[in-house]
C-alpha cells in the first residue's frame, strides 16, 4: 500500500499488471505475434552484435536463404508442406482438447501404408499417375486414421490418457517402419526401399520446366496443393460445419456438450481418426514428393514441430499455413548460415517471445502515477 507524504523521491511512474476484463479486438492477437517476432529479431540482433557479427547482414542473408529467390522460396515451401498438414492434424485434435502427441507416429504409418501401394505392390509399376495418386492418398489417410483410432478408442472406452498412448505409439510406428526398411523392403542391404516408380512420384513444378522455363529446378510438389486443400477443408469443418461446432463445444466445456446432447465418446474417436489421417497424409507427401522412397529418416520431428505450429497459430488453419512457412524458412536457413546454430538461435528466441507475448493477451500493463491520491 502506498501512502502520501513520503519524503523519499520515488520514480514517478510505475507499471502495474492488471488482468484483462473485457474482450480484446481481433487484431490484438496477430499484432502481438508480429510484435513478438520483431522483439525476438532485435534480441537476436543484439546477441549477434555482441559476438562480433553484423546483425543486419546476418538477417538479410537468412531472409535471402529462405525467400531470396524463387528457388529457395520453393525449397521453403517444400519444408513447409508437411508442417502444414501436421499442424492441421494437431489443430483439429487440440480444438477438442485431445492432446495428440502422436502425429509423428501417424506420419510414419501414413508413409508406410502409402508405400505398400508401390512396394507390395498393390498396383503395377506402370499404372497411370493419377491412379497411384488416388490410392496412395487413400492408403495414407486410412493408415493415419487407424493409428489415430487406437488411442481414440482407448480414451473413449477406457479413459486411457491420450498423451501417453499417442506418445508411445510413435515408437511403435517408427519400429514398425524400421522392420520393413531393414528387412522386407530393403534395397541392396541399405536401410531404405527401392526408389518408387516414376508414376508414383508427386508432380513437381520442375516437371513442367519444358512448358514454363521459370519452373526449372523447383522442387515444390503436389503435396503443397494437398496441404492447401486440407487447410480449407479443415477450416470449413471447424468453423462452418455442425461437427466443428460440436468439436469446439466439447473442447471448451465437455459438461455443456453433454447437456446439449453431444456424444463425446463418438467424437473422441472420430476426431483422433481425422487428426491421424491428416498426419498420415503428410507422411505420404514427404515420401512421394521429396525422397521418392521409404526410408528411416523421413521426418526430422515434424510430428512434434507440428504441435508447436498448431499452438502458435492458435489452432486457426490459415494461421497454421503462415507459421509453417516461417518455420520452413528457418529450417532451410539453418543449412545456409555458418555457424548453423544462428537460425536455430533465432528460432528459439522467436519461440520464447511468441509464447511470452501470449501473456499480454490476458493481462494489460497500466501506467500508474504515484503520489496522485488526495
Amino acid at each position, binding site marked *: *500500500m*502506498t*501512502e*502520501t507524504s513520503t519524503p523519499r523521491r520515488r520514480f514517478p511512474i510505475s507499471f*502495474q499488471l*492488471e488482468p484483462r*476484463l*473485457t*474482450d480484446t479486438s481481433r487484431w490484438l492477437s496477430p499484432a502481438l505475434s508480429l510484435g513478438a517476432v520483431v522483439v525476438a529479431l532485435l534480441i537476436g540482433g543484439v546477441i549477434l552484435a555482441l559476438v562480433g557479427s553484423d546483425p543486419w547482414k546476418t538477417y538479410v542473408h537468412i531472409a535471402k536463404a529462405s525467400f531470396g529467390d524463387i528457388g529457395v522460396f520453393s525449397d521453403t515451401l517444400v519444408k513447409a508442406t508437411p508442417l502444414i498438414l501436421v499442424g492441421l492434424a494437431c489443430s483439429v485434435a487440440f480444438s477438442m482438447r485431445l492432446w495428440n502427441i502422436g502425429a509423428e507416429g501417424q506420419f510414419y504409418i501414413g508413409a508406410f501404408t502409402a508405400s505398400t501401394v508401390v512396394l507390395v505392390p498393390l498396383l503395377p509399376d506402370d499404372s497411370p499417375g493419377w491412379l497411384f495418386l488416388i490410392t496412395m492418398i487413400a492408403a495414407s489417410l486410412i493408415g493415419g486414421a487407424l493409428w489415430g483410432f487406437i488411442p481414440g478408442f482407448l480414451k473413449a472406452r477406457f479413459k486411457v490418457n491420450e498423451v501417453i498412448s499417442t506418445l508411445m505409439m510413435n515408437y511403435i510406428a517408427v519400429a514398425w517402419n524400421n522392420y520393413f526398411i531393414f528387412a522386407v523392403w530393403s534395397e541392396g542391404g541399405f536401410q531404405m526401399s527401392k526408389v518408387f516408380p516414376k508414376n508414383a512420384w508427386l508432380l513437381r513444378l520442375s516437371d513442367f520446366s519444358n512448358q514454363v522455363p521459370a519452373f526449372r529446378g523447383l522442387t515444390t510438389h503436389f503435396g503443397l496443393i494437398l496441404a492447401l486443400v486440407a487447410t480449407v477443408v479443415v477450416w470449413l469443418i471447424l*468453423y*462452418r*460445419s*455442425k*461437427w*466443428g*461446432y460440436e468439436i*469446439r*463445444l466439447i473442447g*471448451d*466445456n465437455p*459438461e*455443456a*456438450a*453433454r*447437456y*446439449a*446432447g*453431444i*456424444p463425446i465418446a463418438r467424437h473422441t474417436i472420430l476426431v483422433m481418426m481425422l487428426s491421424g489421417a491428416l498426419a498420415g497424409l503428410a507422411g505420404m507427401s514427404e515420401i512421394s514428393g521429396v525422397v521418392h522412397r521409404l526410408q528411416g529418416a523421413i521426418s526430422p520431428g515434424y510430428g512434434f514441430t507440428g504441435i508447436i505450429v498448431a499452438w502458435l497459430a492458435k489452432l486457426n488453419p490459415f494461421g497454421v499455413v503462415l507459421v509453417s512457412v516461417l518455420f520452413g524458412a528457418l529450417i532451410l536457413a539453418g543449412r545456409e548460415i555458418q555457424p548453423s546454430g544462428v537460425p536455430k538461435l533465432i528460432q528459439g528466441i522467436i519461440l520464447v517471445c511468441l509464447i511470452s507475448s501470449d501473456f499480454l493477451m490476458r493481462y494489460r500493463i*497500466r501506467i*500508474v502515477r504515484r503520489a496522485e*491520491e*488526495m
Partner: protein
Amino acid sequence: MNPAGELEDIKAVSMHGIVKRFPGVLANDHVNFELCHGSIHALLGENGAGKSTLMNILAGLYQPDTGVILINGKPFTFHSPRQAIEAGIGMVHQHFMLVPSHTVTENILLGLDKPRFRMHLKEYDHKIAELGEQFNLQVDPRARVWQLSVGEQQRVELLKMLYRGANVLIMDEPTAVLAPKEVEDLFRTLRTMVAAGKSIIFISHKLHEVMSIADQVTVLRRGKVTAADIDPSTVDRAQLARLMVGRDVLFTLEKSPQKPGDVVLSVKGLEAENDKGLPALRGATLEVHSGEIVGLAGVAGNGQRELADVITGLRRAKSGHVLVQGEELTNKSPCMGIKMGVSHIPEDRTHVGTAPNLSVTDNVIMKTYNLPPIGRGWMLNSIAAERYAVKLKDAYEILAPSINTPVRLLSGGNLQRLILAREISSAPMLMIAMQPTRGLDVGAIEGVLRLLLAQREAGAAILLVSEELEELLSLSDRIYIIYDGQIMGEVLDGDIEKIGMMMTGTRLELIQQQETLSTGA
C-alpha cells in the same frame, strides 16, 4: 482531544467520487460510500448496478479511474488484494476460493508468510479452533473442504479473513448458496462479529434479508447511488425495490386461470444415486400436464438436482420410468429429449449450461444448431446463427458488447438471461427450470417469471424447482414437496403450513390423518 469522540466521526471506510469505466459501460459514476464502525451496511442493487465493482475496488481487485479511498481516515491505494488485506479489508466472494482437497487449516494458512517451511499444523489447528469459538464460526479445522457443507465452507472463508486480521468484511451475496436455516446461523454470526468490533458490508439483492440484518442500506442503480445510508426500519420493500429498479416492481404476478391439458411428463418410482454414490431418489413419482406450472418445493439437497438430471438424461436412473408424451425417455441420451422439445435450465448455469470461451452466438445456438435454418445437412449457416443471436439478444435484453463476445465476460444475470433466451425461444413442450431466478435481481426476476407464465399460457408444461417458496406459491398451479428423495405430497391450495411440514419430512397422508383426528375430537 477526545480520542473516543474522534473515532466516532472517522468512518471505517470512506469512498469518495469513485469512477470506474469499462469499455462500453460506466460501472461506477462518482459513487460515495461510507461504512461506520461496528455496523452492517447493505449495498443493494440490480445485477450490473455496480455494487460488485465498487467492492472489488475496495478489496483491491480493480483500481478506480478516479476517486479516493480512506480507511479509518487515512488514504490508501490498493494494487492487489494483499494490500487491501494488510489494511484490514477482507472480502468473502460469492464463489468460494477454497481448495477442496486441503484441510480447513491449510486453506486458511494459504499464502501467508508464516508458517515458513515446516508446518506445525496441530498448533494452527488449535489457533483456528479458538478463533472459530470466538466468533461463533465452529468448523473442524482438520476436515477437508470437500467434506464440508456450503454453510461450513462459507465459515472457512470468513475465518480466512478474520485470521488475517480483517476489520472490515465484505460479503458478496452470501445467502445465495445457503439454506434458510444456514441463513439464520450466518446472521447470528454477523451480529457476533459486529459486537466484537468488526464492520460489515453486505452486498445483496434480497430485500427481505437486507431489511432484517442491515443497520444501513445504500442503493445503487446503473452506477449511481440512488439512496444512501437509509435506515431499513424506515422504509418498506416496495420503496427499496423502486429505488433499485427505478419503477414499481410487482411482487405478485397476474396469473390467468388455465385448464391444464394432457399429461406431458410422467415420472414413476424413480430411483437414482447422487455424485457420492448414495441414494438420492427413492421412488419419486409425479406428473406435469401441458399448460400448467408445477412447483417442486424442498430444502436443497433432497434430490431435486438428481430428479432434474434423470429427466433430462444427464444421470442414470437405477429403476423407474420417465415418460414424455407417452414415450419412454428413461436413461436415453439428452439429445432425444432435446429433439422432443424438452428444455432444461440447469442449476449450475456456468459449469453446465454455457461454454465460457465461446461467443454469445455459439452459446445461443447450443440447442438449435442441428435444425434449419441454422443447421442444414452437415453445414452450419453462420449468418442464420448470427441473425438468431441478435434476435435473442434484443428480445431478452442480454447486455453484451457484441454477439462475438466470449460469454465468460458476461455478468451472472446476463448469463442467466442468455440461457433462458436459449431454452424458451425454442418453444419447448416441457421445461425443467432449476432455480431460474437464483442470483438475479428483483427486476430480472420479474422478467423471468413473466416469461415462464407466458410459456404456460402457450401450453408448455413447466416443472419449476425452486427454494424460494414465495416464487413457487405465486407461479405454480400445484406444488409437490420433495424430501429425502421421495414426494411427500401435493398441495393445491398453497397452504404454507402443510408445505412446511412436508418439507421437514411429514407425509401428506399423515397430516390429513392428524387433521381429521383433531377435527373429530
